[in-house]
């Protein structure tokens, strides 16, 4: 009985301990992921390549074992070639995105102006346009940092500083993910908020026209 009782207690303790350990691992692991995914800080304006590299290494805290260091060292120059091709693609994407967002902003400006002439309240649309402008500015800024990071990856002496190279690649990945998220956010905002508001304003205008027609 005693033994059985101890056995039960022992079993309970083991399960409890296991749960505690699992929770601990989960929390620490999640914390580790959060640290790894922390957004890179804004690089100092006018900073040199060395400044940025030191900043990225400090942010990412990359730790590589010998095997991984050797692997990266043997492959990193090919990666740099891939990144050089990617620089051109990213440059075109950045220019095209900026132009399209400018076009949308211009159309909103014209519409707001003409709605004002029609004596329609444009406050909500103006506020949305301003919010969109901020979102686009954020996208363009992150795109600028991303391109800068790609430039740094392309020029670093990667075999001499594998840790710095890895830190830059990780930084570029975070910026890339951020850009996708921001782009999706802008799209959603335009479709769900701005176009919805335009539809409401269109209905309001049609209603006013109907009233004027009846009068």
């Amino acid at each position: 009985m005693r033994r059985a009782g101890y056995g039960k207690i022992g079993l309970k303790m083991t399960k409890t301990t296991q749960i505690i350990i699992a929770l601990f691992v989960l929390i620490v692991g999640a914390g580790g992921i959060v640290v790894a995914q922390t957004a890179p800080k804004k690089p100092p304006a006018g900073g040199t390549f060395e400044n940025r590299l030191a900043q990225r290494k400090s942010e990412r805290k990359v730790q590589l074992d010998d095997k991984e260091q050797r692997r990266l060292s043997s492959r990193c120059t090919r990666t740099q070639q891939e990144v050089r091709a990617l620089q051109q693609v990213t440059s075109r994407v950045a220019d095209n995105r900026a132009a399209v967002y400018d076009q949308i902003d211009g159309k909103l400006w014209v519409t707001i102006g003409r709605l004002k002439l029609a004596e329609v309240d444009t406050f909500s649309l103006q506020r949305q346009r301003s919010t969109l402008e901020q979102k686009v500015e954020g996208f363009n800024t992150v795109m600028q940092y991303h391109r800068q990071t790609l430039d740094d990856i392309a020029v670093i002496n990667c075999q001499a500083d594998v840790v710095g190279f890895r830190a830059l690649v990780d930084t570029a990945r975070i910026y890339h993910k951020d850009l996708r998220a921001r782009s999706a956010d802008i799209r959603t905002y335009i479709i769900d908020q701005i176009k919805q508001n335009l539809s409401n304003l269109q209905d309001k205008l049609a209603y006013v026209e109907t009233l004027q027609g009846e009068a």
Partner: protein
Amino acid sequence: MDDDNLQNQQQSGDSQAYSQQNPSAQSGQPVIGGKPPKKTMPFLIGVIVVGVLIIGIFLFAALSGGDSGPNAPDAPSPSDPISPNGPQPAQPLDVEQSSNAISEDLGSLNDDVDLPRDQLSDDNLDL
């Protein structure tokens, strides 16, 4: 005959000497007793014609090319919401068109093409 020839030679010799001494004699001034220069009048007429042509070209460019010069604003297209009289109050259709145009702009952007999810993956970076 010999006396006459001698007299003419003397006169032409005088006129050459005169023309060398006096530049006005070379520029179309009739020389008494000598041959008048025949190329002066056509030259003057040519200068006048060229001048009139140049003035005409400038006038033509100023009058007919003023509206379509490089600095002139583009003619508004049928879909241009700003009419020659300036922006007009919005109609329901205008707002709809504007919304559709924004959709078209947005539709030209594709995240999966511009920023593919695996763009910086180990495989794509040959890492």
